[in-house]
């Protein structure tokens, strides 16, 4: 499957959006929108401060090496940069490293850094700095989670010369470049890191187009332009300093307040718009919708095959045959989300889809359940077997599932009921949700996972990922335990041949989809609404964070 490029969609005014026909009309509106090239909107204008309103949680630390979540990635991508990046086609491209070369045994990679680049504190970007960063990520005291996992096979970094850093691996890693393209493994000033965690969390120092000036907790972070900026990624339109003088990065948790502030001109860009807001903004040419689904896994419902009743493949298939989600996605998301039939995001060039596996058929579902022995019914119509009810516990994280998704899950509940499943949805806060998963109190669950590259499949479906971390967390929530899948994923992660890698991932995805371990829903939704006065902004093809290096303000 080809990856869908990130499109900047200029909304067009359309008349007659009637409440009853909103879904249909928005679908038509979307289909009618053309991708606009940012370059086509006139010459860049120097100056101005862009106000960004973020609905993601305010980070507790601005250094994405510490912990490593998406809110940190969003803001740190404005001031930190990585060794490599990824372009819209999924190709790895130069950034702070201008070239790289693996050894024949693929156990050592030499990265040649761009010359003459300095961090904003004046420290030169050299091989020693790269070494310090990798050691920082691997140091338990840093408390890195995402970056630490991404560099799992990196044993050490050796300084070959000022500009050449050698990564020494414990095993070949075909995902190394993709791992290094992520904001969680960005390169920071060693002098900044040396200040200690408290100071570095307040204002990490990077090579990026902006510099952290001030962080007023719960309110905003002031970012000012790096006037000496000269390290744009290879696919940027602007290779010099940013046109904007700065960014005021505000934390506005309420989504309708964010949209009201955008409508009133108080802010220029908002993230996390709700689907109904996007649909409303479609009818107004004062706004631009930047749709940037996240890479890695698709949003999907995982079926826990580690225990009854989903240890029986027939019951899993029955659930997938019974559940109808297409209408719900269409109406609840106002046409802003595309149905997925793959475990991977459409942003991943190696994503494999098979819609034929997910056709709904209530009769087939009933027949499968009868065959599996769930023949009795209780007074509610829920199927029974040996005195046990066909109950599916469905913990839903209110932090991770937007209201539209929660409503979709209610439709899953309603359609599954027709086949005799009793889906019990519990809305939980994040801690309680992880708690329920850790003690295996779920039959179905939806958990997003953002990562660059198809290696996310190994994290989500390799049997090693069923073994819980000390905190009780484990990533393989379908508890898929198949030696054939394990072998394919392990081989794909170490092969050097791109064609072989693609074939291995395709086979693995066929097995994962064909075993009915998951119900893909749509890409992990991620988008931005921009005032029409903002030109040239784009989402990075790495993890879809917004980039304002190429952006300018008119009017």
């Amino acid at each position, binding site marked *: 499957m080809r990856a869908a490029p990130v499109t900047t969609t200029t909304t067009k005014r359309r008349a007659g959006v009637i409440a009853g026909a909103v879904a249909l009309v928005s679908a038509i509106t979307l289909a009618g929108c053309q991708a606009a090239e940012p370059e086509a909107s006139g010459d860049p204008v120097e100056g101005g401060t862009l106000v960004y309103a973020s609905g993601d949680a305010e980070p507790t630390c601005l250094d994405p090496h510490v912990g*490593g979540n998406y809110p940190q990635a969003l803001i740190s991508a404005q001031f930190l940069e990585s060794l490599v990046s990824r372009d819209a086609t999924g190709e790895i491209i130069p950034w702070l490293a201008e070239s790289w070369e693996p050894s024949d045994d693929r156990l050592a990679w030499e990265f040649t850094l761009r010359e003459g680049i300095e961090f904003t504190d004046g420290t030169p970007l050299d091989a020693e700095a790269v070494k310090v960063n990798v050691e920082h990520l691997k140091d338990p005291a840093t408390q890195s989670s995402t970056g630490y996992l991404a560099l799992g096979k990196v044993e050490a970094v050796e300084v070959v010369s000022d500009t050449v850093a050698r990564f020494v691996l414990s095993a070949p890693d075909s995902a190394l470049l993709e791992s290094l393209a992520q904001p969680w493994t960005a390169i920071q000033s060693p002098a900044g890191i040396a200040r200690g965690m*408290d100071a570095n969390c307040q204002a990490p120092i990077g090579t990026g187009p902006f510099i952290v000036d001030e962080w007023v907790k719960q309110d905003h972070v002031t970012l000012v332009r790096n006037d000496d900026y000269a390290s744009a990624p290879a696919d940027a339109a602007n290779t010099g300093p940013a046109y904007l003088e700065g960014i005021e990065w505000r934390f506005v948790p*309420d989504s309708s*307040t964010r949209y009201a502030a955008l409508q009133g001109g108080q802010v220029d860009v908002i993230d996390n718009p709700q689907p109904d807001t996007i649909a409303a903004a479609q009818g107004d040419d004062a706004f631009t919708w930047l749709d940037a689904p996240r890479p890695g896994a698709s949003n999907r419902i995982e079926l826990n095959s580690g225990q009854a009743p989903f240890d029986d493949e027939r019951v899993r298939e029955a659930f997938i045959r019974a559940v109808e989600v297409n209408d719900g996605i269409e109406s609840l998301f106002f046409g802003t989300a595309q149905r997925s039939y793959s475990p991977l995001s459409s942003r991943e060039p190696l994503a494999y889809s098979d819609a034929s596996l997910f056709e709904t058929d209530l009769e087939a579902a009933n027949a499968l359940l009868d065959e599996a022995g769930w023949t009795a019914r209780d007074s509610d119509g829920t199927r029974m077997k040996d005195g046990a009810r066909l109950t599916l516990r469905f913990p839903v994280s209110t932090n991770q599932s937007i209201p539209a998704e929660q409503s979709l899950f209610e439709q899953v509940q309603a359609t599954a009921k027709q086949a005799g499943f009793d889906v019990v949805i519990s809305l939980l806060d994040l801690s309680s949700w992880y708690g329920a998963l850790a003690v295996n109190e779920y039959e179905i669950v939806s958990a997003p996972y953002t990562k660059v590259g198809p290696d996310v499949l190994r994290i989500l479906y390799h049997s090693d990922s069923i073994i819980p971390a000390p905190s009780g967390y484990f990533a393989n929530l379908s508890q898929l335990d198949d030696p054939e899948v394990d072998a394919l994923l392990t081989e794909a992660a170490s092969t050097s041949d791109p064609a072989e890698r693609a074939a291995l991932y395709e086979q693995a995805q066929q097995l994962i989809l064909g075993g009915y371990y998951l119900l893909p829903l749509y890409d992990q939704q991620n988008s931005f609404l921009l005032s029409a006065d903002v030109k040239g902004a784009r989402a990075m093809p790495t993890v879809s964070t917004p980039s304002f290096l190429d952006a300018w303000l008119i009017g």
Partner: protein
Amino acid sequence: MWAVATLTFFAIRLIPGDPAQAILGGPGSQASQEALDQVRRDYGLDQPLIVQYVAMLGRLLTGDLGDSYALKVPVAELLGAQIGGTLLLAVLSLALSWVLALALSLVSTGRGRVATAVGEGVELTAAALPQFWLAAVLIAIFSTGLGWLPPVATGTPSGLVLPVVTLAIPLAGFLAQVMRESLLDAMSQPFVISARARGESALGIRLRHTIRHAALPGISLSGWALGWLLSGAVVVETIFAIPGLGRTLLQAVTLRDIPVVTGVVLLIALVYVVMTVLTDLAARIADPRLRQEAPR
């Protein structure tokens, strides 16, 4: 205060979530066993609950609220930075609700059946309005519709208008209901008739005589009201994106940041205590009878 600290300490341990995980990057963290053990030792989380409890009381007695698990800064510093904004919001809202409540009860009490019915209807509706709904309506009218006021409070006076009004309207409805009753009571007292006999106008009577009676229950309710406003701040601060204690509390509960939750709860309890003392004093000023230590 001791009771509040004790309740908070045990209540927060009833909700699921491991404090050691909260320290190491929050829920879903993939911290190693060594790191978890280290943190449990450092923070004394490996001790029996009663030992932790006594240790916490000991720290509180010396005025030490501890360090935030998530932000790794002293709780006192964190709360000190946020309390100003929340108190300003609460005090302004209290003042506005007083003005609204007095105006409403003075205007509509004892002015015939229609005025009373309208007044009572307004009060009841105002008191029953949910803040999140009121905030959304105010934003829709004054920000999106008219463009007069910003929906995001950015530290300017105009940004505070909508949040203050959102908090004040339900409270004003509540206060006005109480004031109306005592005002009606006072209006039927003999001193009103004698004032009328001296030639005092209807408005004069209200402003010079009965207003004190109306104010009394309002004053004693203000202590409660400020506490109510502090909890209302959680909603309003989130909607209008204002930095403050409400958002601090919300984030701390989500992240299972026990020291911060305890700190905020203690602080609100302290405000209740201080306000109760203050309202008692204010009641004495408004009602001379309370100044004589005569038995009732």
